[in-house]
C-alpha cells in the first residue's frame, strides 16, 4: 500500500498532518514521560549547547535539560501551541523537509517518532538528510522510529509483516472525554477513531537510510518497540 513518491506529500497531509492536528490535545495528554535513552542523550549535552527537536509534538523533551537551548518544531500548529509553554525553549511550525535553519550550525538534534511518518523511502532519506544538514561536523542526531519487530507488544506486528500500516488512534467518547479539561473533543459522546500512517522499520533499515542520507552511525539499538540511532553527517 506504499503510495507513489510524487503523491507522498498529499498522502502525508491527509494521513499524518491532518490527524495530529485533530488529536493534538488528547495525544498530548498521553505523552508526558521521557524515554530513558532520549533523556540521557539530552542530559549529556554540554551547558550552553544549542540544538533542535524536529517533530517536537507537545514538547515533552524540551524540559529535560535547562542548561541547553532547543528550537523545537512541528508540522502541527496545535501541538506547537502546547509545546510553547516549555520555557526557556522556543518552538516554530515547520516541515522536516523545509526546515527554517541554516546548515551546519547546531550542536545536536533529536527527531523522535517522526521519520516513520514519511510515506516513501526517498522521502524518509530526505528527511534524515535534512536533519543532518543542520548539524556541525560530527555533532550527533538522535533518531527514533517505530519497529516492525514488536513481538512483545499487543499490536501484533512482527518480522516479515507489512511495513506500511495505518495505526488507529481512538478518542473515547462520553464520560472520559468530558473529564479531560483541555481535550478538543469534550463535546463528543461517541468514540472517534483516527488513522495515522506509519512505516514500520525492520532491523537495520534505519542505519541504511542514515548512510543513504550521507550520514554515519555513532550508536544504535532497540528500545521498547523502537529502533534508534545516533547519527552524524559525513564530512564534505
Amino acid at each position, binding site marked *: 500500500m506504499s503510495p507513489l513518491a510524487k503523491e507522498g*506529500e498529499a498522502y502525508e497531509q491527509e494521513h499524518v498532518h491532518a490527524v495530529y492536528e485533530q488529536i493534538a490535545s488528547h495525544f498530548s495528554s498521553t505523552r508526558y514521560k521521557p524515554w530513558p535513552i532520549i533523556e540521557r542523550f539530552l542530559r549529556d549535552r554540554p551547558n550552553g549547547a544549542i540544538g533542535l527537536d524536529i517533530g517536537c509534538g507537545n514538547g515533552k523533551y524540551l524540559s529535560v535539560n535547562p542548561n541547553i537551548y532547543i528550537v523545537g518544531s512541528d508540522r502541527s500548529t496545535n501541538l506547537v501551541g502546547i509545546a510553547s509553554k516549555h520555557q526557556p525553549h522556543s518552538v516554530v511550525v515547520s516541515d522536516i523537509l523545509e526546515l*527554517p535553519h*541554516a546548515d551546519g550550525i547546531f550542536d545536536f538534534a533529536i527527531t523522535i517518532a517522526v521519520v516513520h511518518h514519511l510515506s516513501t523511502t526517498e522521502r524518509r532519506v530526505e528527511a534524515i538528510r535534512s536533519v543532518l544538514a543542520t548539524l556541525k561536523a560530527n555533532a550527533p542526531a538522535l533518531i527514533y522510529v517505530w519497529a516492525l519487530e514488536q513481538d512483545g507488544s499487543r499490536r501484533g506486528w512482527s518480522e516479515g509483516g507489512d511495513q506500511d500500516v495505518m495505526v488507529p488512534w481512538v478518542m473515547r467518547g462520553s464520560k472520559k472525554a468530558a473529564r479531560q479539561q483541555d481535550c478538543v473533543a469534550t463535546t463528543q459522546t461517541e468514540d472517534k477513531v483516527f488513522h495515522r500512517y506509519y512505516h514500520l522499520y525492520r532491523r537495520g533499515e534505519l542505519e541504511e537510510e542514515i548512510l543513504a542520507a550521507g550520514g554515519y552511525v555513532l550508536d544504535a539499538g532497540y528500545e521498547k518497540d523502537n529502533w534508534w540511532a545516533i547519527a552524524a553527517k559525513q564530512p564534505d
Partner: protein
Amino acid sequence: MKLLTLNFLTCARKTCKSTAAAFPLHPKDAELEQIEIDMNPLFVKNMLPRLEWEAMKTLTQELGLPALPAETPAPEELTTEDGEASQVLKDLHVLLMETSVASGKLVCGNCGHEYAVKEGIANFLLPSHMV
C-alpha cells in the same frame, strides 16, 4: 518567540538558505513582549560564543532596541569581581531570553517571503508553489 531564536532561523526555502541575504530574517510590524524567565548565568555565558553577533546587532537595530556592543562581550565582562552576574549579562538575559516577538512577520531578505508570527509562534510552512 524570544529574540535568541531568531539567531537560529533562516528562510525555509532551499534556494534561499545558502544565500547571505536570507539571514537574519527581518522583523516587520513586530509587536514585542517581555516574558519573565529565570536567569541562568552559566548558560548565557556558554551560549554567547555560539551566536552570530552581527545578526543580533542587525535585529536589535531593526527593532529599535538599544544598540548592542560592537563585539560579543568577553567572558570577564559577564561576571563582577565577586563572581556575581554583571549588568552586561543581566541586560543580555533580558534581551535574548525575555524579549519576544508576540506577533508580526519575519521577512526573507532574499526572496521577500513573509512568515507570520501569531501568539508568539512563527509559521514556516511554505505554500506548495514555493516548495
